[in-house]
């Protein structure tokens, strides 16, 4: 199996607000890989660095002047820190915790990025891309009659799936999910999880979640982060049945966190 992403000795820091020039380490010498077409789930308590890690994977943190990092991340053979940011984000899409529909119609939301990136130009191609993306995100049947109404009017779960469709429209290689269901009810959550499982065939997925059960339901492999360190990573089945580390076991069984 091929490694899609290889993380080598990654450390991340935030400027310490308490002392001038001081830095707080939030990720420490991280080495991990993501295999092609797997769902790698990352679990861990608050402040374990899992979201920082995820946002580093498509360099969303680069806008934060307080943030700095060391180490390398390879996507295929390319070091992402040497890549053009827009090109990187085309290859590595990201879904946020709260659904963020852009203030436009459903149709425009999906076609926005492909049009920007020059992937599609003709009107007929656009329609095709929109339909395919919505179908892949299992949203097509619910919205096909109102593609031109505002995306802000959709329900929370629909908005989140719209955001998934929006990412699929640019056909990335990797999709990052940052606690995508933390604001959703159980039924919407189930639907989002269902789409994730289907997407696995075509894409590589990294999922950060606070919901340990969700990690066990959808993950191929699971990594446990604690205080900025990777404690353990293994097949999801193994991690949940016989974790090697005591801390992992404590967290999974709900003794802390």
């Amino acid at each position, binding site marked *: 199996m091929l490694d899609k992403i290889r993380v080598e000795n990654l450390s991340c820091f935030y400027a310490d607000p308490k002392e001038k020039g001081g830095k707080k380490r939030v990720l420490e010498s991280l080495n991990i890989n993501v295999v092609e077409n797997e769902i790698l789930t990352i679990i861990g308590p608050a402040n374990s660095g899992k979201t920082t890690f995820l946002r580093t994977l498509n360099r*969303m943190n680069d806008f934060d002047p307080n943030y700095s990092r060391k180490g390398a991340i390879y996507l295929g053979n390319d070091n992402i820190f040497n890549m053009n940011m827009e090109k990187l984000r085309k290859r590595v899409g990201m879904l946020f915790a709260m659904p963020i529909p852009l203030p436009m119609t459903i149709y425009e939301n999906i076609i926005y990025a492909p049009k920007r990136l020059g992937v599609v130009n003709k009107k007929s191609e656009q329609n095709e891309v929109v339909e395919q993306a919505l179908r892949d995100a299992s949203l097509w049947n619910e919205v096909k009659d109102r593609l031109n109404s505002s995306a802000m009017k959709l329900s929370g779960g629909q908005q989140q799936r719209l955001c998934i469709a929006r990412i699929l429209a640019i056909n990335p290689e990797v999709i990052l999910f940052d606690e995508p269901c933390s604001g959703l009810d159980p039924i919407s959550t189930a639907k989002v999880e269902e789409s994730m499982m289907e997407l696995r065939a075509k894409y590589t997925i990294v999922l950060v979640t606070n919901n340990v059960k969700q990690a066990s339901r959808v993950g191929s492999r699971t990594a446990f982060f604690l205080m900025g360190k990777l404690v353990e990573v293994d097949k999801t089945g193994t991690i949940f049945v016989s974790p090697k580390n005591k801390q992992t076991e404590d967290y999974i069984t709900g003794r802390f966190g």
Partner: protein
Amino acid sequence: MKRKIDSIIEAIIFVCGILSIIFVALIFGFLLKEGFAFFKEFGVIGFITGDLWYPTSDPPKFGILPLIIGSLFVTAGACVIAVPIGVMSALYISEVAPKGVRDVLKSFVELMAAIPSVVIGFVGMVTLVPLVRTIFDIPTGLTAFSGSIMLAFMAMPTIITISEDAIRSVPWSYKEGALALGATKWQTLHRIVLRAAMPGIIAAIMLGIGRVVGETMAVMMITGNAAQIPYSIFEPVRTMTATIAAEMGETVRGGMHYRSLFAIGLVLFLITFIVNFTADLFLGKTKK
């Protein structure tokens, strides 16, 4: 005892609140009374469409079309100048400028709003007016164009501060969402941020226009005050506001001329009311 104090304070606040309404209502009522008295004698249509303003000749002619067109020229010119510059600078201040630059710029913009209009008027008169005359080689620099430029300066602080608020209130998550889809910073700014802030920006523009339409002192000093229909922006014009300010002192109280100025005031009030009302509509839309 405590309840008594409470009710007294309540009464005082009530009176203060109601007073401002009463004042506005009184002013409006007075305007209506004098304005309508004029319309009864002279008629509305002849007033608005008449192209000659000779209030003191015999018989007097009360046509305010030249004044309306004068106001329109100056206002439109000011908008063409102030809107692009104002919106861009709001965008720069809120999205592009580093923090130090932003703070300095913001305080300067606020300072700009504090310059009295008569100061803007006389600075324009001694600097801009001769410049316009020599650059465009025209007989006088006192033109609608000069007025537009100075009024643009007066509208800009309003446009900048309110647009900047609107742009800043676009949730960070929108920008993040667009960036995560591979949009560049500029694409995010112009497709997402400007679009989401549009109602607020339109309201800012409307309020800016409202200020320009009602402005008196600066235009009176720079636009030349010729009550004739202009054929280009490089001709002197006279605005409605300047007419009222210039002529009110010379009228006979209760006379036709006196009342006609009130009628102009009424027309002006109507225009600014519509502009402000539209701005309110858009502002309400952003809050939803």
